[in-house]
């Protein structure tokens, strides 16, 4: 008994040292850092142009990031494995192209066409995963080949017309549907209540199990923070066109995959494979199955992003999925703290990263800057973010030595 008490004391003192300030210093509170960075970016653009933080522009911003954000969710999953998928842009374009051709030229119902587009992504992911696991080809190479090949496939699918325009349908509704006050406030209340309830439930369970419970103040702080954010966001969106369906889709995907990666065995195994594949294999985890599943999810989410992008543009053309889409989708999560080397990061970085990159792009558009400046600034921000991460990691490894 005495030994147990002593051990617990030791544990508490250790816990105290790893308090919030220590964690900031070691860069473990990545989310907070990114939020501070985002606040900084928003302040600068608001000062430069007071339309930046208007309801109209913020709604536009949210709509602009849905496609990239959705693709980034898949990118995070692949990055957590320690792999990379460079074909996501091309896959997003191809999926949208297949969807467009099927519904516009072959008269398939929009819903089935969307499903077909998603399945194109799933199939390509299966292929990528198979090549990586069965033949042991680095994912970098497999998906680099895919980047070219699927772009070619898009051209072939589109044929001579080159562009497909969508008549109003479920496909265009994806990004042009807005919900009113009823849905908005219900969601805000539900999200806030769910945050509080899950916090209290975890606390109760840990208390019942005689484990150190999370402090009540922390749960309340979290609930208030989430509540304020959600209510403010809903209020802003409602003062313009309403709550966009596309944004809800993105948020559900992010929250859903965050839940899967953090709470399920499958999610734990993704982190394990990314952290130490050999250890995972010895622990009895079927690492190749995990890898193939993740590549399939990644490509399916890329397809979903392509479909959202097509819905927003109301068309698919030969340039769909090209340009800076690929780099934005990968840079976003990396800026927000997901490691390129596997095992570290969170699905939330897909949303945060898309917000950062989207804000910069949107703000510079408002200022009327040209692409040359935009590209260079975005590149600079990416480099700065990764440098900060590297510095934090060095700090962390120094802590480890002592």
């Amino acid at each position, binding site marked *: 008994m005495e030994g147990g008490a002593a*051990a617990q004391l*030791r544990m508490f003192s250790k*816990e105290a040292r790893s308090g919030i300030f220590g964690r900031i210093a070691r860069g473990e509170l990545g989310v907070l850092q990114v939020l501070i960075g985002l606040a900084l970016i928003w302040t600068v653009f608001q000062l430069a142009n007071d339309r930046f933080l208007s309801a109209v522009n913020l709604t536009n911003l949210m709509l602009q990031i849905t496609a990239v954000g959705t693709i980034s969710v898949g990118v995070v999953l692949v990055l957590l494995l320690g792999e990379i998928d460079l074909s996501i842009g091309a896959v997003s374009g191809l999926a949208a192209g297949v969807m467009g051709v099927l519904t516009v030229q072959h008269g398939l119902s929009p819903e089935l066409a969307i499903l077909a587009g998603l399945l194109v992504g799933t199939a390509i992911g299966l292929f990528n995963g198979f090549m990586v696991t069965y033949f042991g080809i680095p994912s970098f190479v497999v998906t680099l080949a895919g980047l070219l090949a699927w772009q070619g496939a898009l051209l072939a699918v589109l044929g001579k017309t080159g562009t497909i325009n969508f008549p109003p349908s479920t496909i265009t509704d994806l990004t042009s549907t807005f919900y009113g006050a009823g849905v908005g406030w219900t969601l805000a209340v539900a999200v806030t209540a769910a945050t509080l309830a899950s916090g209290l439930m975890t606390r109760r*369970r840990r208390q019942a199990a005689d484990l150190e419970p999370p402090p009540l103040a922390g749960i309340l702080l979290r609930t208030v923070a989430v509540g304020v954010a959600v209510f403010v966001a809903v209020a802003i969106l409602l003062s313009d066109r309403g709550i966009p369906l596309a944004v809800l889709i993105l948020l559900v995907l992010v929250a859903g995959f965050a839940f899967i990666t953090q709470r*399920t065995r*499958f999610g734990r195994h993704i*982190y*394990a494979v990314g952290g130490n594949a050999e250890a995972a294999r010895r622990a*009895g985890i079927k690492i190749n199955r995990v890898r193939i599943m993740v590549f399939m999810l990644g490509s399916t989410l890329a397809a979903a992003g392509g479909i959202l992008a097509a819905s927003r543009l109301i068309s698919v053309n030969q340039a769909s999925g090209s340009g800076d889409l690929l780099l934005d989708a990968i840079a976003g999560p990396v800026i927000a703290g997901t490691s390129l080397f596997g095992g570290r990061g969170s699905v939330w970085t897909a949303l945060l990263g898309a917000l950062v990159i989207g804000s910069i792009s949107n703000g510079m558009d408002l200022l009327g800057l040209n692409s040359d400046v935009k590209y260079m600034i975005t590149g600079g921000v990416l480099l700065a973010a990764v440098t900060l991460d590297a510095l934090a990691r060095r700090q962390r490894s120094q802590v480890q030595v002592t």
Partner: protein
Amino acid sequence: MNPRMARGDAKPKEAGNGGGSAEHLLALRGFSKSFGPVRALHEVDFEVDSGEIVALVGDNGAGKSTLIKAIDGVQPPDAGQAYFDGKPVRISDPRTAERMGIATVFQDLALCDNLDVVANLFLGKEVVGHNNVPVHLMDEVEMEQRSKQLLEDLSVTTLGSVRTTVGSLSGGQRQSVAIARTMVGEPKVILFDEPTAALGVSQTAQVLALVKRLADEGLGVVMISHNLDDVFQVADRIIVLRLGERVATFDREKTTPDQVVSSITGADTAEMRRLENE
């Protein structure tokens, strides 16, 4: 003592239809393994009892690792019979070994640095909550509780929080986690491959104390080590392999490191030293 006698002793037992193996927790009879023309193990007998620490020593290439791999199913032998609890068994793969109750603590630890202690302890054996959801939701509370209990049982108190990331632990702490992890499957025999290699003095002491505690709790412990100091601190019996054969068995209390060294190298060093002195 003539080292060769030890091996000779075991031979008649084998002939007795494994009857001589009945008293052992785990016994191997006549294990052989070749890699092409290389004879890694030749007719090796081996046994470990409940509550006993057996040290497996020998020079590089003596067959220690091959023997361990034959026991834990990673690399089944070409010939030989294993007995577990007196019953003849076939350890064809690691899963079978694990189910039987044979666990291995690997030399390179095989931990995931990016995960916390709890996640590492339950890696691949995550406790899934009793819920009606189709996905396998992990029961973190249950796992954390069992982790704490497990570490407490093993008297591992230096870890701090069980939610610490393993990558930030010291070598000794990592070794403790690796050992504790094998205990999640509640094994009966635990194999260590160089448990103290690359550890500092106090960390080595920690790990050896842990090894001893496992034996005190009734586990059969097999330990490969190059470090005779460690071996003499904890082992009950010392089995020497040389060139794939078991050449000697020593009772730790009735032997000296010199005798073990001479057996490992195949030279009677005490004799040589006496000659040098003259």
